[in-house]
């Protein structure tokens, strides 16, 4: 089999996953796209291992490790997503903007309560 076939398939799959990570809004769908990218990397590892006829089978062993680490990652990731959903009531990535900087010179409405709270805290400390 030509090496180009699995290599090109892996590249295309990786780019589909890249698009998913950048374009999806739901956090769980972003995790799915990450899985697609990891699967593409695995295909590359296996194909090059078979091509090189590695006596240590490093590529296939690394592919196994990647599969196991992907399982661990998805477990932790889902726990974090559920925690975010429970505290925020939403799992959309573009609504989690608490640490976003507002552009300079435009005091948006979201900033004002935080600023008032800060002055209130400072006043309390001074008193």
């Amino acid at each position, binding site marked *: 089999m030509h090496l180009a076939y699995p290599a090109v398939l892996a590249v295309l799959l990786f780019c589909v996953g890249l*698009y998913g990570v950048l374009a999806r809004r739901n956090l769980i769908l972003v995790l799915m796209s990450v899985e697609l990218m990891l699967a593409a990397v695995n295909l590359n590892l296996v194909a090059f291992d078979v091509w090189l006829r590695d006596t240590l089978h490093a590529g296939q062993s690394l592919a196994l490790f990647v599969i196991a680490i992907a399982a661990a990652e998805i477990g932790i990731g889902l726990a974090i997503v559920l925690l975010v959903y429970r505290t925020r009531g939403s799992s959309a990535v573009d609504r989690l903007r608490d640490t976003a900087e507002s552009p300079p010179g435009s005091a948006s409405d979201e900033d004002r309560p935080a600023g008032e709270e800060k002055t209130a805290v400072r006043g309390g400390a001074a008193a």
Partner: protein
Amino acid sequence: MTRDFLSPTGVEIVFVLVGIVVLGAALLTVSTKQLVHSALWLVVTLGGLAVEYLLLTAEFIAWVQVLIYVGSVVVLLLFGLMLTRAPIGRSPDADSGNRWVALGVAGAAAVTLVWVVVDAFRTQYIPLDEAQGTTAVMGEALFRYWVLPFEALSVLLLAALVGAIVLSRRKSEAEAGDEGTKS
């Protein structure tokens, strides 16, 4: 030894056909508006990749892929979708605002990488006359040369499990009441 792309072997034909199915399912995974269907298309993608591993004679990886990815990861993802109350029908806001930027980035990356990969490897050929990834071969490689990473991996899995439990644990009564008065 040169082989022509225009006279493919049977294995190559099957590989390309399954590859088209895998790519189509992956595109549907990242583009469908129904969130649960997305997880089901992911099953098709990963199952097709298992077939590709079989065609590359890496049968142990193929079965591990079926067991872990299709068996457990997708089930976990479905659990996650259900627990975050994902809408069952079509959801119009499945894609965020930077969809066209994402399309541009992914397209540029695809063109560049395909060009590089084809340019570098178009003359290389994988001989498939001898199976490279049977369970016997892989077991020998794993437990003779890769024992230490394998054991470290089991510790890592345990750590991930404990971490997931700690993260998803409900707070105790006192902490929950404290948070309730705060908010």
